[in-house]
């Protein structure tokens, strides 16, 4: 009973936060609501006895990724009004599609198929059950190929990000240390020999 209350609390929080993410006007608020959404889903995972994943979600997403998100959002000059242009025009069509989807999903993914009668509740894990060890074991044995492909995926993401944002040196004004240290005295100072006292130019008498 208590578990159910906790579940509904987290689930309601998740739905509310997710709705706010796409409806609030201020992008910084949207990011903060996303943080709340992540927290709520971490709570749900905790109820499913996936403690390691729940903590990883909080540490990685809330702790690191969302902070970067906030930085990016604050650096960008986002014109929310322009982004929301046409919102009301599309609402009816989008609403109908969303409602149909919801109805179809509700018809199929309901109590009759996923209720406790259809899928019995799995027995609770023993107290000394090692969540982390279990994940580690399958991650590097059974699922090593998908794991490595995911790593390549991240590599491609890095390459693409650099390829798309790196500007050519022509436009950057950063100092180039490797050329600065090569500078010698001859590049900077030029000694010019001059006579100390210049003789007065000869006067040419007018004829």
């Amino acid at each position: 009973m208590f578990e159910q209350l906790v579940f509904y609390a987290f689930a309601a929080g998740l739905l509310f936060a997710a709705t706010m993410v796409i409806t609030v006007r201020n992008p910084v608020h949207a990011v903060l609501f996303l943080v709340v959404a992540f927290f709520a889903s971490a709570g749900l995972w905790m109820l499913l006895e996936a403690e390691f994943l729940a903590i990883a979600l909080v540490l990685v997403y809330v702790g690191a990724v969302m902070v970067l998100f906030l930085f990016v959002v604050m650096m960008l000059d986002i014109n929310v009004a322009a982004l929301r242009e046409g919102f009301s025009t599309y609402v009816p069509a989008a609403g109908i599609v969303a409602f149909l989807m919801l109805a179809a999903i509700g018809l199929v993914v309901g109590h009759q198929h996923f209720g406790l009668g259809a899928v019995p509740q799995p027995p609770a894990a023993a107290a000394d059950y090692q969540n982390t060890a279990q994940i580690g074991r399958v991650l590097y044995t059974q699922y090593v190929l998908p794991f490595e492909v995911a790593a390549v995926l991240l590599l491609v993401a890095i390459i693409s990000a650099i390829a798309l944002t790196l500007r050519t040196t022509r436009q950057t004004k950063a100092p180039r240390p490797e050329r600065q240290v090569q500078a010698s005295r001859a590049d900077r100072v030029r000694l010019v020999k001059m006579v100390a006292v210049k003789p007065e130019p000869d006067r040419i008498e007018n004829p």
Partner: protein
Amino acid sequence: MNDIALILPEVSLLALACVVLLVDAFAGKRSPELTFWAAVLSCVIVLAEVARFVPEAAMFGFSGTLRIDVLGVVLKTFVLVLVLLSFFYAREYFSKRPGEIRGEYYPLALFATLGMMILISASSLLTVYLGLELLSLSLYSLVALQRNSVVASEAAMKYFVLGALASGLLLYGMSILYGVAGTLDLSELLVKVANLESQRLLLTFGLVFLVVGIGFKLGVVPFHMWVPDVYQGAATPVTQFIGTAPKLAAFGMTMRLLVDGLEGLAEQWQQMLIILSVLSMGLGNLLAISQRNFKRMLAYSTIAHMGFMLLGLISASANGYAASMFYITLYALMSMGAFGSIILLCSAQSEGDQLSDLAGLGKRSPWFAFILLILMFSMAGVPPFGGFWAKWSVLKEVVAADYVWLAGVAVLFSLIGAYYYLRVIKIMYFDEPESPYPVTGSADLRFLLSVNGLLVLLLGLMPGGLMAICQAAAIPYSP
């Protein structure tokens, strides 16, 4: 055979792609040719490794997440050959239009190829998804590489957003299937589906979302929104790349998911594919008629062709799969040539992708007008050319599967489609050129394009060889 030996081609491709990336980073500016040759060499090495080992029965590796079989080997070979061809075309474009795209094209294209190979040999929902993402992510950034072009950025953005949506739907479908069957493994799923009669509704529900993901990757109506914008917006070599090899990978993905994993639901997915197929052939062919941009016209023609290709899968028989594979291979070859012609026509000032740029090509360059004539006739499905046999083999299977009305609809839409292919030929031979500048292209490009066009003609005269390969690949699927 151990796991590493099975996946050797993919491992070497990853290593070589990283080498090409480093070569490009350190020597790319001084000698762009070096990156190109490194990329070509990588493809050739991997091609040799793939073709070296053809298993007699399907072999599984990495706890059943990887599957090596004849279908996979054949598809990977075709993919690598197509990628190699598109590299040679791309090199010409870069030398004709310097400054449009930077050298990251080759390494990113190689990573996309890696994604295609993983997708083709996937045997688990997880591998399918990751292979697909690797392919798509590389393609998004390839489109966006042309940074100075507003159209390209817009195309990349549309592609990315719609692709992310399709990935989300695909994942949702996979999660439903996992929830019902309790396995990610496609061969286990095949057994489970046969035994889970009572859960038919739920499995079908998951299947719907998988079909959405597949439909997006193939670019069939109603998941085609990205195709015209991406084809038109991206630089021609990128469009050429997207329009050829990834189509084969998408076909591989369809086979893996629908046939290797969910053949038990064939009745259900046949109905869905019929809808997608009829809509694609109709909308693709009708909208292609009103296009002025050659690349956009080819995009709508792709949509129609993909709809036609699905007809073979609808028959749900080994011969049908072979026919679809034959169709998509030939289509990739034809569209390679068509985009190659645009590269021939482009110059430092213009992309050369308007239909009006083709005006008077018959006078400016009779030989290449003839090559494009072969390609257009072939796409329309006129008898002596390759495209005819592709359409013929697919239609034969549809009729054999008792969908005569569907074959009738397909023929009707092909007739409508013939109009805009023939219009291209009319523009080439009967319209006056706007500017009678001669067609320029290096000897390499001329050779490549001639071989490409003549290959389509040759496959029309002797389709037996390629057909036999496709049938051999589909033998395991015969009951």
